């Protein structure tokens, strides 16, 4: 894979689905037993598809990090076979193998004696790129991970934790490896920065489409980041390997169920986009309609309120029937209240549920980016999804 084959867009640009760059990783009956007899990974067979984010999750001592580190031969399996991008890892020179696999760890491990630019250009330097190509790549990557170009000449200790983590990601991406290994990459930063880095990671991945193996002990992070999740129990037993929704819908056993934690239904709603369910048209009136008409519309929908939608279907708010006591009144004359929370197509059903419980109407109103009314989501609709 050459860097020319990859199209990078700046980090801040809207997500564009990039071409899949990744490579397949296959574990075939892999066991790792340490010298003291501890079994870290027990007869693991699993395939990671190209361009897929697979999260290894489980309690400490479940072998998730060991599993990750066997991919780039930082740990050698006791038995079994690992095939990386069509080649048996054990038969590939470790240094050569690792230059084609990006690696990000919680402690980052930036080289304190090298500038940010030199840190990012680590693997290109090992691969013997010329200075100009390296400089261009560094510039490109700084933009990609959202760091100002001026950072290039700084040393790691001059950066904040979040910035260092971005440099770590840029360094791992530098030679455009088809595979990235990430071991609790966002574990050392505070929750606010972590949430932002997670979001940026997902946006970045939508562009670069690497094959990513990601280790975390945080099930919520796993559900958020993973296309598929491998849940390990102690002593390296793979309990379930499934897409997040399938895990939540159908946990394989009590261990998985317990590990997924409380509020599985809510977690599932967090994974379903508003766009995936059909919104109802709702009791809609226009500001010019009469109060009588509003009452009729509300009755037809079994509500005591109506949604007021103006010209070009712009959402204006809602009106309670109690405030429309005079039949001669027009809807627009009454007190039109704004919806405190609105959701759009990209929000999750969990956000919609939150909008429902905080609104006096008991529904979530869906609008487009431009404030155009798209319909309402009701609790019946949501409970249908949970069941």
């Amino acid at each position, binding site marked *: 894979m050459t860097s020319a084959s990859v199209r990078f867009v700046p980090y801040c640009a809207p997500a564009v689905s990039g071409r899949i760059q990744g490579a397949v990783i296959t574990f075939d009956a892999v066991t790792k037993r340490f010298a003291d007899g501890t079994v870290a990974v027990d007869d693991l067979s699993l395939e990671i598809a190209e361009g897929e984010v697979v999260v290894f999750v489980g309690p400490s001592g479940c072998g998730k990090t060991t599993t990750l580190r066997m991919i*780039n031969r*930082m740990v050698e399996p006791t038995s079994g076979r690992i095939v990386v991008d069509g080649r048996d890892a054990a038969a590939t020179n*470790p*240094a*050569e*193998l*690792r*230059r084609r*696999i990006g*690696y990000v*760890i919680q*402690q*980052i*491990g*930036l*080289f*304190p*004696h*090298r*500038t940010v630019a030199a840190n990012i250009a*680590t*693997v290109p330097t*090992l691969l013997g790129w010329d200075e100009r190509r390296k400089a261009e790549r560094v510039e490109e990557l700084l933009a990609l991970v959202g760091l100002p170009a001026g950072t290039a000449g*700084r*040393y790691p*200790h*001059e950066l904040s934790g979040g910035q260092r983590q971005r440099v770590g990601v840029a*360094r791992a991406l530098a030679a455009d490896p088809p595979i990235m*290994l990430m071991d609790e990459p966002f574990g050392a930063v505070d929750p606010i920065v972590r949430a932002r880095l997670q979001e940026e990671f997902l946006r970045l991945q939508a562009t670069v489409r690497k094959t990513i193996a990601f280790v975390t002990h945080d099930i919520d992070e796993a559900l958020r980041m993973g296309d598929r999740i491998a849940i390990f129990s102690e002593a390296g037993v793979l309990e379930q390997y499934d897409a997040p929704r399938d895990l939540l819908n159908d946990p394989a056993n009590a261990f998985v169920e317990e590990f997924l934690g409380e509020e599985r239904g809510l977690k599932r709603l967090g994974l379903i986009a508003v766009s995936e369910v059909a919104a109802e048209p709702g009791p809609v009136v226009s500001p010019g309609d009469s109060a009588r008409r509003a009452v009729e519309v509300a009755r037809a929908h079994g509500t005591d309120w109506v949604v007021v939608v103006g010209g070009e279907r712009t959402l204006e708010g809602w009106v309670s029937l109690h405030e429309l006591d005079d039949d001669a009144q027009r809807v627009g004359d009454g007190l039109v209240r704004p919806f405190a929370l609105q959701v759009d197509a990209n929000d999750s059903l969990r956000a919609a549920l939150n909008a429902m419980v905080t609104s006096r109407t008991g529904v979530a109103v869906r609008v487009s980016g431009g404030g155009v009314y798209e319909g309402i989501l009701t609790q019946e609709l949501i409970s249908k999804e949970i069941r």
Partner: protein
Amino acid sequence: MSLPAALPTVAQAGEALIRWDWIARNTGRIQGLVVEHVELTVVPVLAGLAIAFPLSLAAVRWPGFYAPLLSVTGLLFTLPSLALFVLLLPFTGISRTTAVLPLTAYTLLVLTRNIVEGFRGVSSDVREAAAAMGYTRLRQLLTVELPLALPVIVAGLRIATVTTIGLVTVTAVIGQGGLGRLFLDGVRLRFATPLLVGVAGCVALAVVADLGLLAVERRCTPWRRAGA
């Protein structure tokens, strides 16, 4: 041990502490002794470094080797210098080798300890990241671990150098000694000026060497000062 003709042959009591005319008449000899002193310092320190470096790397690689290595270099360090020089005389005679061998041996403890601690001080995260990026072992050692270990190694080098500058004077008893020979002159002639010149010269050499090495270290570690 022969005394150059230029030296006054009679001790003179009640003289001024420093006789500048003596210094003026002996400038050439003093310069020669400074050069000798520098050589007797640089050769053992470099030789010590050449020996300590591979041994230290071995001790980093195989931690079990570190304790015996420290015992041996520590034992060498405790040998009384005068005795060691005299003991070597039958084998190497009145030669520079007789001076250089023990001086080299004395540097080993400090150098070994600092090289090992320097490499051990490199954070395991950095080592792990380097390995995972695809460094070969040797390249990682030279371009990642060595620069990071350098401050501690240079600190050891400074101690070894300054210690050696002092120890060199003892080798005057076997006809070497650099500026140390001036001590003997002074004692023999009961004349303070050569003694004082010798002491001042040693101190000056030590200070210059120390500052020089500090400057080298600062040049080699620009990251330690950035944005501080």
